[in-house]
């Protein structure tokens, strides 16, 4: 399946745009494809994310994105860094988001 993956990013679109809807499967997935996806897992994490995105306050927690740790982890070339970033905190500090 090496060459059959089209650009992911074209589908991702701008996440700053609230009207963007990622929940629906793209139309090119046929009926059998939908069954296959359902068979792979009953979970729908895209839907949960839609809720988080709607409720969350923009800008809060953005300092994390500016840390060296995040920059190194997300930007560095393959194999140069530790592959795992763990953000930890006590209950209610806003690990998922603040609302």
């Amino acid at each position, binding site marked *: 399946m090496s060459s059959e993956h089209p650009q992911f990013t074209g589908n991702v679109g701008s996440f*700053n745009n609230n009207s963007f809807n990622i929940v629906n499967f793209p139309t090119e997935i046929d009926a059998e494809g939908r069954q296959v996806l359902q068979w792979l897992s009953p979970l729908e994490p895209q839907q949960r994310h839609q809720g988080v995105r709607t409720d969350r306050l923009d800008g809060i927690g953005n300092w994390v994105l500016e840390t060296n740790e995040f920059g190194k982890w997300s930007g560095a070339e393959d194999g140069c860094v530790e592959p795992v970033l763990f953000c*930890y905190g006590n209950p209610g500090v806003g690990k998922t988001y603040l609302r």
Partner: protein
Amino acid sequence: MIDSLCDQAEGKDVAVVWLYCDFLAQKEQSATSMLGAILKHLFSRGGIPEHVREAFQKAKEEFSGRGLLLPDLVEIVKKAVASLPRVFICIDALDESTQQCRRELLESLQEIVQVSANTRLFLTGRPHVGEDIIKCFSEVVRIHLTPTQDDIKSYLEMRLDEDIDPDMMDNELRADIMRVIPEKISEV
């Protein structure tokens, strides 16, 4: 965080997938359903590979539609990420999964990351799940999350603006709230 990664990914061939663990959904959330969700996410964007469709047909005909087993899922994820230059897998609130689910999930992800240098994991959870993570990954970058004073102030401002009974509020009270609460929180 997820949105920021997606923004970064825009214009590049990068996939960002995510999972939220949830106390209330522990029954549905197993390592298999979570790895399955990662695949579902990848395939719903990039198309379903033929070998997965075949496995589905076979399961339907021979095993009355039984789902894949964990080792099979791990192999499929390995293949799926291999065709992409960079994949970010984000899993929120690991502490909300059962210990068994967390262990199996982390072990599976470790197997995947081991052969896929292009795959990065972003995990969140309460401090104690760090121990489970370390068992699987020797090198982990850690960030301790606490809201900053600015975070708390933005949050308070939003909540005050949403006040359903604004007659009770005046500038003095508002100023007091904005001063005292961030102070108290930073003392904690």
